[in-house]
């Protein structure tokens, strides 16, 4: 594509050089989520019995009165939302070509994920 076409309605709406950053974010958040999954799995296996108190305790445990369980779950959920944003945005970029439709889907994706974050925060921090 010649650069002389790259203005006005012909302007490419990609190319802000965020690709490498997003590539890295997707992988870093993946590692965070994998580690948190393993932490929960170990917690589940270490339970003497699967009861309400022990299950809830995975998300509400404290260390020196600090809400470590809730903070870890919040961090993991933020990593999840960021990870999902990059993945779903990639799906729209691969399959949806009309710029307007793609923008609409991306906006809806952000609203969906921010809504999920707020919903999760409400559940978690009212425990």
């Amino acid at each position, binding site marked *: 594509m010649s650069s002389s076409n790259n203005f006005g309605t012909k302007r490419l709406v990609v190319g802000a050089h965020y690709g490498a950053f997003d590539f890295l974010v997707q992988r870093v958040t993946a590692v965070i989520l994998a580690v948190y*999954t393993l932490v929960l799995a170990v917690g589940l296996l270490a339970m003497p019995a699967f009861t309400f108190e022990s299950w809830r305790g995975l998300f509400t445990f404290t260390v020196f009165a600090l809400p470590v369980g809730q903070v870890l779950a919040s961090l993991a959920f933020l990593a999840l939302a960021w990870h*999902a944003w990059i993945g779903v945005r990639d799906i729209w970029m691969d399959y949806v070509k009309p710029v307007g439709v793609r923008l609409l889907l991306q906006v809806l994706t952000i609203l969906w994920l921010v809504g*999920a974050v707020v*919903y999760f925060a409400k559940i978690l921090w009212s425990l």
Partner: protein
Amino acid sequence: MSDTAAKPRPQFRNIGIPQILFSYRLPLAGKVSILHRVSGALLFLCLPLVILPVFAMSVGSPESFAQVAQVAGNPLVKLILLVLLWGYLHHFCAGIRYLVLDLHVGLDKVAAQKSAGVVLGVSLALTLVFGLKMFGAW
């Protein structure tokens, strides 16, 4: 500009769903790849609709905790939870494979094919184990 433009240039587009389902016979690594995408999209859609409501019930109170098992008694709910469980496990296993591939480990054809098979097998086996546990087989 010149009459050489009369010949249409070949176009290469992204693979569409009909091609994935009917035209191409994807290698194992390709199947893992598209299932990684499908499972991710599924988890994204079900997060506020299924996963968070069930999570809220499970940690809310002893009564709502017990209610989860009751709701999961419905075969349709059971199926949805099982599919989501598979989606998470597949996305987890395939994701770890991609992280390892990103470290330039196991990139050759034979190793990549093998690890793709392991991902499919392990995630299905874990789904079976957790599924049986979830449905109270023991």
